[in-house]
């Protein structure tokens, strides 16, 4: 991959330099402006999207047990279909690390060109990802990070800490300096570093305006777990002013619990950015007033980057010759004011 002839590299850089007008980073294709990720391919104003050498990509992700995760695979497959030079092998979702490892081993046996991997557990998949890298396969790590820099060529990450910061900052803005507001938090799976990052970002942002998380519970990203966690939380906290729920899929259950408890004294902020939550925000008739986006198109970005890497192309809108080591996506707050921008790219839970 890195053995491209210097002259070719220079040629790519030149092409990139001529064509570069706007920054079409992975972050931006996630719809910060026009919101329509499905038309991402149309936006590129370089010849990067022109058909090139055939690329075989293996793709593996956890089980699609919630809408966001389902959308990860769906948008990756849709992205791959747009290129006639990509052959995508999808090893479908599993939450069993033992099985996911064997899926990657199968890709290695198959001698694929690249592997786009959203691990169930980043640390547990590190060893086998490294094995793939050692076998000369380009590994793109998506969303849940490996614990070794040698295990992936490029990592595409959502900004989990940034999500917490966005949500916390929104709460601070709403509280307008009142330090007695009660803040509650419903986290996702606590064992995942992404949940820990979100909570840390939230706590850090709240600290800046003198607030803290008064009640915190953890669910498991599923509707059922959200309902269970929220029911308990609402019992524990008789009065809440702001509630941040990390994930809109479990949010369906959280909202059900709120409804059952007849509570509406607080403002609820969602997370991840599902379509039904955005529709609620738009309708403005529930406690949901905002959500923080965590793009479900990151695996699709992984597919695009894998293709560039295998074909030896650069990201044409960067001066940099090589594809970056890490792409971190932005985590904007969606409210009634800007919901129309983000609704088209939201995932259905």
């Amino acid at each position, binding site marked *: 991959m890195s053995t491209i002839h210097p002259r070719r590299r220079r040629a790519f850089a030149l092409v990139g330099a001529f064509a570069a007008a706007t920054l079409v980073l992975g972050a931006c294709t996630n719809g910060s402006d026009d919101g329509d990720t499905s038309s991402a391919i149309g936006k590129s104003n370089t010849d990067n999207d022109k058909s090139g050498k055939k690329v075989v990509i293996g793709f593996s992700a956890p*089980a699609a047990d919630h809408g966001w995760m389902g959308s990860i695979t769906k948008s990756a497959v849709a992205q791959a279909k747009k290129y006639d030079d990509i052959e995508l*092998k*999808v*090893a*479908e*979702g*599993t*939450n*069993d*690390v*033992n*099985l996911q*490892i*064997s*899926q990657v*081993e*199968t890709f*290695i*046996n*198959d001698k694929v060109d690249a592997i786009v991997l959203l691990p*169930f*557990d*980043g*640390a*547990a*998949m*590190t*060893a*086998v990802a490294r094995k793939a890298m050692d076998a000369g396969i380009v590994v793109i790590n998506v969303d849940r990070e490996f*614990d070794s820099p040698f295990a992936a060529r490029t990592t595409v990450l959502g900004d989990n800490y940034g999500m917490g910061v966005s949500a916390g900052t929104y709460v601070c803005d709403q509280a307008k300096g009142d330090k007695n507001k009660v803040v509650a938090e419903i986290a996702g*799976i*606590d*064992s995942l*570093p992404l949940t*820990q990052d979100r909570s840390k970002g939230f706590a850090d942002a709240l600290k800046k305006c003198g607030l803290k998380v008064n009640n915190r519970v953890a669910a498991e990203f599923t509707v059922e777990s959200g309902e269970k966690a929220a029911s308990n939380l609402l019992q524990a906290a008789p009065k809440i002013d702001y509630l941040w729920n990390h994930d809109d899929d479990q949010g369906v259950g959280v909202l059900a619990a709120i409804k059952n408890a007849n509570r509406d004294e607080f403002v609820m902020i969602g997370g991840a950015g599902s379509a039904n939550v955005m529709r609620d925000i738009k309708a403005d008739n529930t406690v949901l007033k905002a959500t923080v986006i965590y793009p479900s198109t990151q695996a699709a970005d992984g597919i695009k980057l894998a293709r560039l890497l295998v074909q030896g192309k650069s990201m044409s809108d960067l001066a940099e010759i090589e594809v970056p080591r890490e792409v971190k996506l932005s985590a904007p707050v969606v409210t009634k004011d800007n919901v129309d921008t983000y609704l088209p790219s939201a995932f259905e839970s």
Partner: protein
Amino acid sequence: MSTVQQEESTEVTKTRGDSGGSLGVVRNLGLVIALVILCVVGVMTSGDQFASKDNVITILRLASVVGVVSIGMTFVITGGGIDLSVGAILALSSVWATTTGTQSMADDYGWIVMVLSALLVGTACGLINGIVIAYGKVVPFIATLAMLASARGLAEIIADRKTQIIRNQGFTDFFGAEPLGIPVIVIMFALVVVGGWFLLNRTTFGRRTFAVGGNPEAARLAGIKVQRHTVYLYALAGLTCGIAAVMLMSRTTTGSSTHGTLLELDAIAAVVIGGTLLSGGRGTVVGTLFGVLIFTTLTNVFTLNNLSTSSQNVAKGVIIVVAVLLQQRIANRKT
């Protein structure tokens, strides 16, 4: 191998009025045919890829973890019990063996400390299961259900729900090695299968297991210490969980409270389609081995053909029902 094993199980199950005959041979033959059909499908659909040595190794590596646990499960089920806690015990063992405390001890005294603590924790959990069941007279389903909940809970507490990474290079090097091209964990799996077969078919321990599972009262009257034997069986299952934990630790280079989730169902399924009676008294290690291989080969064939895990699960369910129906037909014809 299967005929020899057949003689043994016939001899022991005579007390229950089961006529053995060619029963075991037929059953194992059915499993072999199923596996062969799967392999033929694999070769037909993805030819060279499927039949390659690398792919066979991949299948065996995937089979190792669930396989070792299934061997322990074979003993428990043959002895008339059930163990729902194997996945949770595996998680607890993997977490215990990878805490910072254990790992720093491993740095001082060698990685064997991590292995021993995994085996010890697994066996201890099994021992508790056995004591609660044998002496506390709690039905196995409930007792191991309780262990399932509490072992995973304890694992979460110890690990603080974080994934613990193994820093010890010696451990990962040893278990990640592939002497003669065969991964160490596959060799471990083979040893457990051979050891399990020997223990069940060639020792008094095995004969007692059949007797206890077939008819505990008769076994007691025959002078077998049924309670003590039950404790041994669950401790043995716990030990296999410890071994499986070491294997999964080497595969993932981590210990985690999420390891082995729903492993108990895979293990029970493999044991049951292998031909071990869920009601106890009859069991076969070789059948279990085939059961495990059938499921892992199935997974592999589906993965190679880009088929979803959802359709795979449907196929799994169909196989379980068909296998058990066939077994019943064969059993009815013979009696």
